[in-house]
């Protein structure tokens, strides 16, 4: 029990003191747009085996949540805001992403090749 408390506390501290600076090396940036369930592009090609960044803009009027179970990412984005999500090197394949706040909208796909 005490260990669990300690784990939570450690994570909280890590959150507070974690450095905010990005990696020194330049990573390619790919742009995605979410607008009330519309995802543009619905299919995005990225190079396999290389880390990259996704610049996700919420162009809609509702809050969006960029989510991907395949990429293990979740990021809430306010209307008219832009967020950057770092993705580690991917094996070749298809990775779905979707707006968690728009469950009826079709998912988009990131294709690593």
């Amino acid at each position, binding site marked *: 029990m005490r260990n669990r408390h300690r784990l939570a506390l450690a994570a909280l501290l890590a959150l507070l003191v*974690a450095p905010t600076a990005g990696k020194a090396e330049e990573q390619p940036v790919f742009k995605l747009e979410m607008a009330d369930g519309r995802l543009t592009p619905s299919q995005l090609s990225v190079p396999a085996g290389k880390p990259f960044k996704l610049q996700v803009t919420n162009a809609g009027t509702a809050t969006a949540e960029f989510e991907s179970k395949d990429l293990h990412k979740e990021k809430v984005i306010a209307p008219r805001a832009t967020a950057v999500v770092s993705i580690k090197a991917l094996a070749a394949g298809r990775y779905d992403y979707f707006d968690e706040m728009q469950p009826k909208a079709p*998912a988009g796909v990131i294709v690593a090749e």
Partner: protein
Amino acid sequence: MSAQLGNIVFIVWRESVEALLVIGILEAWLASRDPETRRSGRKWLWSGVAGGILGAIVLAWVLTVFDDTLSEDGRQMFQTAMVLVAAALIVQMVVWMRRNGRTLKRDMETALTGAVERRSWWSVFLLALLAVLREGSETVIFLWGSLAGRPVGEIGAPVLAALAGFAAAAGTYGLLQLGGRILSWRLFFRITEVMLLCLAGALLMTGVGGLVDLGWLPGLGRLWDTSRLLPDTGVFGGLLAALTGYRARPMGIEVIVFAAYWLSIGWMLVAPRPAASVRPA
């Protein structure tokens, strides 16, 4: 517009369901205890809920205002720690309820000593708090984003939609309480126990995903792809994933942890209970 309102109802309900499961089952369980256990248990449970609501608002505020200053990994660590602790607490809770479920309802001479009991109540408190905090902060951010920036005249409809979502959530909660009263304790507990363990499994899967993302666990490659057969996105797939941990494209590590989790749960449920845990105090 109406599609968006329907969306608000659904999202608010969905985000509340997880917390409701945990709180509703604990409350139904407490309702079947002797008056003294019930009284002190409820105090801990509902303080946890209140703390969770307060924390959700604060967390939502922190996540919105300090969005750029929080590192991505720091946020991931925080979220991962939250789901893993919640999963562990749920499993512990099921074990605890099991041990105490067998003793007589009315005049239960609790097997727990004072110190163990206090620790268990702390777990109840922390579990309720985490359950509300996790999904609650998302609900706050979602609602805030959906309401802010609208002309005052247009705010009424989304507010009503949000209230309808909460009402649906309350209805679900009521169903749980009704189930606790109508069904036999044994049957009710069997069902809710499975629901809780599935939920803990889902949280564990989210946690494992977070650990892989942080680079603390190897992914071990994608094992299969059933996304065409049964996706883990959309209305049904998303709910299935959130409540059971289903993954359409699981990685090796996810399959291993998921299998290990259910094997140890199965072992725990089948293995005879140690006699010491049911001996009256």
